[in-house]
């Protein structure tokens, strides 16, 4: 087995554990939408794709990554911590009083965050501005934008899709986290977006599809120069919402919900959270005062 792939896979597992621990401590959050994009972020930041220097977050030549599906911020923060943008200890403050790490990322407060997102349908246009600026300033940085699949129901995405090809933005890569679920149901039960690849192709994009949890495939794809020059690139990453925890996978209910006692035990075992690496972040359910009772169990489905 390739040792670099091993390293990235190990990192993905660590990041998934961090995500859960952060959200658990905060008492609630978007676990499943964050689990969906872990491998994508891992490969972008640690697989030699993004060009960045965490010591100089405003370095002009850096590639820019925009998490358009800002509700998956809990996946971005541990990545930014491991990349060196923020202190690892900060993760313990997620969504708590006094923290800079909120439920959606704030570019004014967090180094390494390029755009404040949260409302869907904004990130692609922001990335277009960045890619355009690179062209106007004759710089060769690249803009990467990660969209949710449900987000493609926003009209502004399609305004942006038309414009990016008109401007021949070949320094723009858009990744769609295609887990086929949105907050309340499957996409195809609400507003279906199929045939997704054909739609983007018809809009003039260079479309490629990949397994969004296959580290090796993602790394090969991102590090390859796009085949067609003068076209923006669209990567449809087929993913599983809640990836890594059996009872969460592909269940719309888990868009925004916390596990109960029984579920927590399964989750701890499946994510491989060991008591010693827990740093008392997570109260294990077999302890008498687990802290779990204070965790609100959301009915799910009210937030994007």
């Amino acid at each position, binding site marked *: 087995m390739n040792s670099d792939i091993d390293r990235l896979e190990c990192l993905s597992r660590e990041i998934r554990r961090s995500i859960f621990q952060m959200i658990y401590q905060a008492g609630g959050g978007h676990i499943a939408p964050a689990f969906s994009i872990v491998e994508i972020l891992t490969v972008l930041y640690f697989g030699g794709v993004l060009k960045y220097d965490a010591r100089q977050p405003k370095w002009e030549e850096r590639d820019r990554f925009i998490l358009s599906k800002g509700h998956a911020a809990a996946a971005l923060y541990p990545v930014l911590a491991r990349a060196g943008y923020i202190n690892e200890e900060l993760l313990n403050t997620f969504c708590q009083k006094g923290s800079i790490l909120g439920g959606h990322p704030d570019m004014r407060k967090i180094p390494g965050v390029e755009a*404040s997102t949260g409302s869907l349908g904004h990130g692609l246009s922001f990335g277009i*501005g960045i*890619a355009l*600026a*690179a062209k106007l300033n004759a710089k060769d940085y690249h803009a990467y934008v990660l969209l949710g699949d449900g987000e493609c129901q926003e009209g*502004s995405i399609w305004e942006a899709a038309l*414009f990016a090809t008109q401007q021949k933005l070949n320094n723009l890569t858009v990744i769609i986290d295609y887990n086929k679920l949105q907050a309340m149901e499957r996409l195809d039960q609400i507003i279906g977006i199929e045939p997704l690849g054909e739609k983007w192709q018809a809009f003039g994009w260079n479309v490629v599809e990949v397994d969004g949890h296959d580290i090796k495939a993602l790394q090969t794809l991102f590090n390859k120069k796009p085949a067609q020059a003068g076209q923006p690139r669209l990567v449809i990453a087929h993913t599983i919402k809640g990836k890594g925890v059996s009872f969460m996978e592909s269940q719309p209910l888990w868009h925004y919900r916390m596990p109960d006692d029984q579920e927590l035990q399964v989750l701890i075992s499946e994510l491989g959270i060991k008591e010693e690496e827990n740093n008392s972040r997570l109260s294990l359910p077999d302890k008498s005062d687990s802290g779990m009772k204070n965790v609100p169990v959301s009915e799910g489905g009210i937030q994007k």
Partner: protein
Amino acid sequence: MRNAYLTALYALAENNPHVVAVVGDNGAIVYDQFRMDFPGQFMNFGISEANMVTACAGLASCGKIPFVYTIAPFLTMRAYEQVRNDVCMQNQNVKLVGTGAGFVYSSLGPTHHGTEDLAVMRVLPNITIFSPASPMEAQKATLAAYAIHGPVYLRLGTNRETEIYKEDYIFEPGKGITLKEGNDLTIIVTGSIARDALEAAEGLDKMGIITRVINIHTIKPLDQEIILRAAIETGAIISLEEHNLIGGLGTAVAEVLMENGANSVCFRRMGLIESFAQGYGNHQDLKEINAVSRKDIIRIAREMFESKISSRLRRF
């Protein structure tokens, strides 16, 4: 105002290659020279305001200085959440330039009128709002917008305004301008309807009501001092704007008066009362139809002056 804006923008673009003129498929003739001379600093985003505004925030995040130009309601309302989240919340250096202030696009109807734009822009943090009254002022406001690092909304009329300033003056953001002195009553005005206020004031002078006219070219931050001085010295204030009565200049003036204890001043707001601008015709026709013409200003001013005098008499 549009040509004056373009003249200023041309000079800015010439001196700074980061200045980018962005349009939403409008300005065919007024931008011709600019497009010809700075093709790399001009961009037409087509008919997609949401994408345009957010992309400009992205451009600004990389050091560009976009001046985004389109019809006021499309810019401020179609793309409102983009203005809020991507420009104002992120404090990006984007200049939003809305044309068709008030109902200057008279016969195009209310879809093309800017009669709520001040209200929706005024509520946003981090933004500066300029609402010039004349071509010269539009030019100065454009240069002032460039000098500010952060979001600016510049509310322009069209190209038909005539100059109200007889000589050059200093445009200071956040400072109102006394266009005409007077101690019996004050008209506080914004935008090109300032000319009507001035003409009405001259009419009022002849009736013995010596009227002060204050032009508020910066809606935010607002010049509190000039408003309070007018309240103390004249005791009667009319606010006048081509805008809904709610949320615009009149509301802003009322906030200043009330918060500073000037509650004995006679105060009336003139503008659109719970309506979109009615009717078709030219700009003056619409002022008449919507009760903000010179005649209306004079009528309201006389009523107010009389009530000011009678309330003073009551006190004796």
